[in-house]
C-alpha cells in the first residue's frame, strides 16, 4: 500500500487538466469526483420538494389521505347506502304484503329458487328438507333446519323469515346442532332476500296461503 495516493488527472477533450480524484483510497480503489449530471441532481431536489408536500398533505392539513382511510370511508359509504336500501325495503314490507304480493309473484319465486340453489342447498338441501339423498338408499342430515317441516323456530311469519335471513341466527340462539346461519344481508341486497322468502313461502303453500292454493 502506498502511503501517498497517486493524484490522477483527467484528460478532458478541451485540454484542461483537472484533478478529479477524491483523496481517499480503499483497497487500492480511488474515486473520481465528477459532477453529477444535472438531471440526476434535479431528481434529488425533486425528492426534497416531495417530502414537505407529503408531510403537509398527509400529516398537517389532511388534503391527502392514506389509502386505508380512503377505503374505510368508501366502505362506510357503501354500508350507509345498504342501510338506506334496507330501510326503504322494510318500509314497504309487512306480512300481508308478502302474502298478497311477493309470495305469489312468479318472477320473484323463480329468482328466489335460483338464489336458493346457489347459496342455501349446502345446509338446507335441494328439497328444503335439510337432508341429502346419497342415491344408495342412504340419507344424510344436513347442517341447516328443514324449511318444509312446518316448524318455525324463529317465528312463522314471512317477516320473521326475512329478518332471520338478513341478520342470521339471533345472537341468543344456540343454533341448530351448534350450526348458526350467517347474516346473508351482508352478501345479498334486500330485494334478493325478499325473493328468497317468496320462494320459501311458495314451497309451503298450505301454511302461508291456506287451502285456496
Amino acid at each position, binding site marked *: 500500500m502506498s502511503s501517498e495516493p497517486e493524484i490522477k488527472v483527467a484528460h478532458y*477533450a478541451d485540454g484542461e487538466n483537472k484533478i478529479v480524484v477524491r483523496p481517499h483510497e480503499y483497497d487500492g480503489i480511488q474515486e473520481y469526483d465528477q459532477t453529477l449530471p*444535472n438531471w440526476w*441532481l434535479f431528481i434529488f431536489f425533486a425528492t426534497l420538494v416531495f417530502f414537505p408536500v407529503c408531510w403537509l398533505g398527509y400529516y398537517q392539513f389532511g388534503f391527502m389521505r392514506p389509502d386505508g382511510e380512503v377505503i374505510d370511508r368508501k366502505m362506510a359509504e357503501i354500508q350507509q347506502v345498504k342501510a338506506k336500501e334496507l330501510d326503504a325495503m322494510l318500509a314497504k314490507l309487512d306480512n300481508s304484503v308478502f302474502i298478497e304480493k311477493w309470495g305469489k309473484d312468479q318472477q320473484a319465486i323463480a329468482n328466489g329458487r335460483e338464489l336458493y340453489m346457489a347459496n342455501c342447498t349446502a*345446509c338446507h338441501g335441494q328439497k328444503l328438507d335439510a337432508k341429502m339423498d346419497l342415491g344408495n338408499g342412504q340419507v*344424510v342430515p344436513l347442517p341447516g333446519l328443514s324449511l318444509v317441516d312446518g316448524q318455525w323456530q324463529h317465528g312463522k311469519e314471512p317477516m320473521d323469515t326475512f329478518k332471520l335471513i338478513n341478520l342470521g341466527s339471533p345472537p341468543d340462539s344456540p343454533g341448530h346442532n*351448534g350450526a348458526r346461519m350467517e347474516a346473508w344481508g351482508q352478501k345479498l341486497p334486500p330485494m334478493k332476500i325478499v325473493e328468497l322468502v317468496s320462494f320459501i313461502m311458495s314451497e309451503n303453500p298450505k301454511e302461508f296461503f291456506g287451502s285456496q292454493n
Partner: protein
Amino acid sequence: MSDQPQKIKRPNLDSVTSINDDGSHHILHPSDVKGRFTLARRVVAWLMIAIYVAMPWIPINGAPALFFDVEMRRFHVFGLTMVTQDMWVLFFAISGLGFLLFVTTAVLGRIWCGWACPYTVFLDHVFRRIERWIDGDAPARRKLAGAPNDLRKISRRVLKHGLYIFCSGLIAHVFLSYFISIPRLYAFMQQGPLEHATSFGVVMFLTGTLYFCFAHFREQFCILMCPYGRLQSALTDDDTMIIGYDEQRGEPRGKATDPDAGACIDCNRCVTVCPTGIDIRNGLQLECIGCAACIDACDEIMVKLNRPTGLVRYDSSRGLAGKKRRIFRPRMLAYGLLALLGLTALGFTAFNRAKPMNANLTRMRGPSFYLDPTLVRNHFQLRLFNKRNQPMTFKVSLENPPPGYVLTGVDEDLKIPAAQELARPVIVIVPNESYQGPRTLTLEVKGQPGDSVVRQQVEFLGPNPRLFRKN
C-alpha cells in the same frame, strides 16, 4: 448558445462524454454509417416494431395474442388465458426469461441492447431517422444546433419535435391497447378524454416520457439508468462476445502511408459514429450498447485502404488478445441451469396447470370444523372461474371419497357463462361413525366442453378421533 458549430469532444476513460464538466448534457450527433450490421439491425428493428404493433391485432382463441386485461383481471397470452390466481406462474416466467437473458449476455454480450431492446429500436430506427431526415447529417445537425434561432431553424425544430410527439403518441397508444384491446381503445378515442381519465392519463404520461427520452434523454438512460446495463460487468467475462478493437493489429496508430504504423489510421470514424460518445479503442466500456456502428465504420475505411476488415469486430476480450475463446464456462452452467429451471417450470405449469378453468376451495371464516350429534362438517367456499370464451358446465365432486364423506351444495351441474366466475358455499360432512380423524380429500372439478379436469387437495379438519369417541 454560441453561433459556432458545436465542438466534437474527444472521449476518455475518466468521464462520460455526454456529461459536461458542469453537469449539463452534451448532445451527441453521431455520424451516418452504412454496412452489413447497420442494415441487419434495421431489418431486425422493423421486425420488432412489426411484432410490437401486431400483437394486439392477432386474435388467438377469441382474444388478442397478448392482452393483459387489467379491468377484468384476465391475462391472455398466446391463446392461454390466465387469471389473478395464476399470477404465481409469473415468477417462473420472469426468472426463466431473466436467466435466459443472463445466458445470452454471458455468451453474446449486449446483443439485447444493440439489436432488440425497444429503447434502442425506437431511438435508432424511428427517432434518429426522423432527425436525420429533417436536420441532415451530423455536421449539418451540429451546425444547426449552433445556428441562431431564425425562422428556418425554428420551423425545422417544430416539425421535428412534432413528429417526435406524434410517434411517441403512436407507441403509447399501441402500449395501451395491450391492456384495453384495440376495439376498446378505438371506442375510447371516440369519446372525450375525461370519460376515461385514467387511460388518457396513462397515454399522456407515456407519450411525454417517450418524447422526453427519445428527443432529449437518449443515451443517458442506457448509461445511467438501465439496470440491465449496470449489471453487465457482473454478467460478462473475458470470453463474452463484445465489440472490441484489435489493439495488436491496430497499434501504433499512424498514417496509412507509414510502414511502421499499425492498421488503425486514427481517422476517428469509430468515434464520430458512436451514439453513446465513446472511443471503442479505449476498450470495453459501460457506455457501449453494442450497436456495431463502429464495426461498420471501421470496415468501410479498411476496405478503402485495401486492408482486411475486422479491426473493430465482434469478438471476446480473449479473442481480441489473440487467444482462444472458450464458450463453456462455469457461469454458463449456472445461468443455464437457472434458466432451464424457470423455463421448465413455466412450460410445465403452462401445459398442465393453466387449465381453461380455475377451481378454488377455501375454508369459510369461523370455526375450522363443526360437531353435530351425528356429523362432523367443514364449511368451504367454492370459487369457479370459466376462463374460456364460451359457456361451460362443471361437475364438482370428491374424488374417491372415503366411505361416509359427502360434499353438499353442488348436487347440480354448474353452468357458467363465458369468462365469468361463480362462488358458492359447499360443505363436506361425515357421519360420526365413519369419522377417522382429520384427512386430506381431493376435490375434482370436471369442465365441459373440453373434458378438462382440475383437482385440488383440501384438508378435512376435525377433533382427535380418540377423544371424540369417548364422548
